[in-house]
């Protein structure tokens, strides 16, 4: 085994196509490090991660007998796996390799001082060499993986993910918080660009999901706890009672008299507390809205029926989790463009529901008033500017584009024009962003339809106020229109529609349970937009749809299928491999103090076991790798220094610190 021989270290410094070599003098570093003991070869390369770069390393392992590899390149997050692969292909244990991040933590942050950047790189690389001398071969921990995935969220992304995972031969549990599937898509009437009926498409998908033998659907259910790791997550779920049976549901719903605003129609209508959001919903059985039900008995056929929620808790063992928790439409604060103050100011989702409730042939009215002039304002709750827009509760503004609203607005505009050709429509925008396939068509069509487009500047927003008394229109919109060279235009209208953007949904509890994080825009964060666009930093937890950021239906579907592909790759074999970075006990040093067991908070990770040695009963600490997370609490607790985390040993850190603190002048001189 080459790894048991005297270390022969190969050191490689990547130019990263100028990204590193622009600040760090890579050749000098290579020359200097060549002086260190055990260093067999040092090289630089334009791009180590390229096939040629990797082949070079492989050749050195095979031909020069290099048995430890140190690479200075971009962040290990990006390419550690790449080089582990190269090292493995050359026949070396993948853990006999050390990665030093010279780009994100050196050249990109110290570019103004090349001398200092080079000096830092030299110390970091020499620390890498110091660690490499002490590296030991390690074997990954192979764990059985549940061929079962959990999908959180029963909107279009969650449904699609569930279906695609099941189609790969895995079992799926789908957990939906509300009593009905479909999410936000159910609230739409038609979809762009095909103009198909949204609920028809949705139901086709739901039917496939419901009919799939490997998918179990839990509605009115929420995740209450998550433990474990990739391949073996233990998920606690709480599911509420539906409250009615198939037999008595319709009758109870008819008999129920308590009403609340219907969130399906954004409060435009009332619904009962035993309800169905719309005809043809899935499941078709009504459900009790436990949050609002006042507990009073309902009289049915002379009997007084009191509905009771008896939530049941259960556990699911799954190998991976898909987070498809969706988004919320932005709710403007009171006063933004008159919202909440003027009754004639509504949001686009409101209008979509209002139009759905207005039968074909009926005149368009709002609050009993006929509508002849309507203004739509884009970018409400999107592309916000600090200092101009009122911050959210967390103090931040939504500085992102919500991507969907431009086409959604023009889609609505086209629909309005089709149904009410005499309507005067004003469209107030900053930029029209009809980017998708077939989207530009809506822009072209609405221009032909005579929709009046006005362009405002993001720093000079339109103003919406009550019209002066006596005006025939209730609302006055004022906008400085860039298309007429900044002239202020006054538009008296009957209705103002705010094209609201996407808000990240408040799922703080779930985030904490899953240990996933949010980006600067507060949507859930992927590892890297191109390298791993639907995976989170937590192995086995992937994202689908608008929980990750604004997306339209088509994009949500693609993201959901992509998430399914990742889950299938992960669980398809029935086992996952985990990195071997777990605690290991040196039995010669351990004398069974039990200090390690005391500090460990992971059940079953470490225990004292009794052995017989030379006829004596002795106690020694024993690790169960699958339960150990490698935090190292036991390492600092052990009075005998008998425990280490494999691959991250205390001795390795001591060696690295020594290298960083060392006087480098002799090394540097040789290189100059």
């Amino acid at each position: 085994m080459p790894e048991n021989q005297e270390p022969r270290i190969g050191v490689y410094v990547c130019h990263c196509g100028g990204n590193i070599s622009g600040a760090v003098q890579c050749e000098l570093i290579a020359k200097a490090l060549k002086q260190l003991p055990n260093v067999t070869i040092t090289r630089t390369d334009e791009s180590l991660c390229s096939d040629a770069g990797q082949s070079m390393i492989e050749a050195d392992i095979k031909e020069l007998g290099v048995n430890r590899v140190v690479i200075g390149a971009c962040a290990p997050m990006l390419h550690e796996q790449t080089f582990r692969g190269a090292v493995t292909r050359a026949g070396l244990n993948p853990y006999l390799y050390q990665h030093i991040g010279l780009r994100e933590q050196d050249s990109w942050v110290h570019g103004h001082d090349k001398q200092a950047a080079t000096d830092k790189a030299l110390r970091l690389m020499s620390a890498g060499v110091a660690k490499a001398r002490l590296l030991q071969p390690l074997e990954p921990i192979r764990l059985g993986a549940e061929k079962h995935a959990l999908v959180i969220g029963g909107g279009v992304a969650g449904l699609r993910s569930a279906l695609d995972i099941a189609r790969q031969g895995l079992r799926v549990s789908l957990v939906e918080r509300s009593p009905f599937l479909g999410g936000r898509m159910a609230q739409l009437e038609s979809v762009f660009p095909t103009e198909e009926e949204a609920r028809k498409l949705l139901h086709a998908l739901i039917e496939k999901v419901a009919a799939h033998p490997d998918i179990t659907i839990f509605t009115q259910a929420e995740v209450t706890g998550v433990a474990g790791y990739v391949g073996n997550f233990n998920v606690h779920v709480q599911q509420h009672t539906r409250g009615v049976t198939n037999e008595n549901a319709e009758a109870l719903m008819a008999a129920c008299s308590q009403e609340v605003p219907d969130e399906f129609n954004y409060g435009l209508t009332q619904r009962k507390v035993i309800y169905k959001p719309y005809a043809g919903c899935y499941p078709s059985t009504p459900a009790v809205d436990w949050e609002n039900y006042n507990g009073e008995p309902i009289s049915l056929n002379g009997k007084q029926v009191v509905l009771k929620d008896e939530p049941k808790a259960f556990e699911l063992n799954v190998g991976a989790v898909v987070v498809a928790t969706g988004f919320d439409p932005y709710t403007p604060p009171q006063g933004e463009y008159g919202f909440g103050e003027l009754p004639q100011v509504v949001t686009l989702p409101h209008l979509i529901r209002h139009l759905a409730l207005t039968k074909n042939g009926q005149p368009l009215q709002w609050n009993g008033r006929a509508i002849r002039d309507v203004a739509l304002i884009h970018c409400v709750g999107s592309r916000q500017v600090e200092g101009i827009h009122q911050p959210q509760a967390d103090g931040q503004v939504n500085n992102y584009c919500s991507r969907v609203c431009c086409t959604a607005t023009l889609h609505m505009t086209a629909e309005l024009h089709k149904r009410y050709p005499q309507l005067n429509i004003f469209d107030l925008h900053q930029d029209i962003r009809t980017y998708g396939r077939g989207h530009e068509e809506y822009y072209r069509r609405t221009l032909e339809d005579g929709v009046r487009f006005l362009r405002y500047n993001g720093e000079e927003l339109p103003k919406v106020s009550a019209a002066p008394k006596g005006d025939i229109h209730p609302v006055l919109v004022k906008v400085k229109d860039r298309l007429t060279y900044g002239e202020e235009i006054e538009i008296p209208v009957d209705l103002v529609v705010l094209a609201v953007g996407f808000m990240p949904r408040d799922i703080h509890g779930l985030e904490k349970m899953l240990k996933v994080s949010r980006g600067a825009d507060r949507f859930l964060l992927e590892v890297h937009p191109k390298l791993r666009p639907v995976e989170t930093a937590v192995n086995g937890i992937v994202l689908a749809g608008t929980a990750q950021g604004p997306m339209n239906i088509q994009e949500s579907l693609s993201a959901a299928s992509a998430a399914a592909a990742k889950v299938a790759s992960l669980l398809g074999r029935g086992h996952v491999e985990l990195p071997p970075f777990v605690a290991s006990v040196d039995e010669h040093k351990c004398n069974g103090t039990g200090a390690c067991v005391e500090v460990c908070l992971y059940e079953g990770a470490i225990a004292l076991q009794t052995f017989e040695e030379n006829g004596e009963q002795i106690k020694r600490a024993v690790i169960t790798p699958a339960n150990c997370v490698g935090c190292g609490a036991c390492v600092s607790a052990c009075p005998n220094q008998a425990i280490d985390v494999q691959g991250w040993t205390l001795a390795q850190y001591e060696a690295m610190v020594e290298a960083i603190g060392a006087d480098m002048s002799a090394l540097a001189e040789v290189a100059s």
Partner: protein
Amino acid sequence: MDNLRIDALIIGGGIAGMQSALDLADQGFQVALVEREPSIGGRMITLSKVFPTLDCCSCITTPKMSAVAHHPNIHLLTYCEVQSVREHGTGFDISILQKPRYVDVSKCTGCRDCEYECPITVPSPFDRNLGAYRAIRVPFSTAVPQKAVLDPEYCLWCGKCEQVCPVEAIDFTQQPETFNIEAASIVMATGFDLTPMETKKEYGAGKLHNVIDPLMMERFLAPTGPYGRVLRPGDGKEPTSIAYVQCAGSRDETLNITYCSRVCCMYAIKQAMLISGALPMAEITIYYMDIRTFGKGYEQFYQNAKAMGVEFVRGKVASIKEDSDQNPIVKVEMTDIGEIVERTHDLVVLSQGIIPASSPILRGGSTQAVSLPLGSDGFIYVPAPDSAPCVTERAGIFVTGTAMGPMDIVDSIISASAAAAEASAYIRENGNRVEAHKEALYA
């Protein structure tokens, strides 16, 4: 060559094709990836840095190229073209042409001795013909496979390469070869081209020396680019005034390309930022109608560029001419002030749009290999984009990336994984999966 039986054939070795291949192969499916160029990597490998993270592009592309090349479940077929596709039971019979490289890839070490010896210098399409290589060459420094290829269009057949090759890899006896693949499914990842500059007469029809396409600028900004710096191609001047003309070939009724190409706003802004870094004194103007920075982190990127001093001028560029020093003169209708002005720049980049790659696989020529209906925009038609975004009209054939319309890299990669999910489900549901599965060591 024996007939290959596989689960999925991926047509196109750009980022979308590579990602689809990797996702299928990681699930244990047997995949063949066919690429008509001598190297995989597609358009992405030619880019400098990518938005919005400004990662070095090759740092993201080369590992995927390498992973494709090393994956035990992927058969990589470069310099090959699909000739015909016939339905066969529940799968397809595909005939593939291996074009002769005149180099034995099993022997070639990619040392480039032949390239240095070759007497003929020819324009390199990898550098948008502004850089050069030789009639025999390794296509570019990070090519996969890292093997030489001889271009018969420029070869003198002098034999010098054969004389210097240290491993006797030059093989003048190679002939085009045809072989067959049986595949249970097909993923189309045939990619895009830029809208041709020649069609835009008012912008100089591609004849003005210092009016360039955006992929040229990518090469100038890349560390391995033809000049190693940003110079204008007319005379090698370092430009101090650079303009971008947005929607040059998109949203343009005169070209019958009415759609938005999605990526042009972001690449123009990105290039403007990179130029600001490379040439701090340069003034950069972007002439636009609408700025469409809609993706995750894109709006912030746009605002950063504004803060850095990139000038955004809302206006439609009516025409471009050049003065006696070959400086392009841009005539623009400034919509904010309602005036038509003429401005002279050192260099103009036309933010050209995206059209489907002129692949003989899809249309034209005598092959018509995969007959798939196209949408009115010329891209592969997807009948149900809001329920199955990667499914084409022909059962078992899926589409991904820019073959189905303009798309940026992030969207292409997600779409590629989605196509892999569709294809793998289709293969299972048809029950004609290939038996042998190898496990990947590391993807």
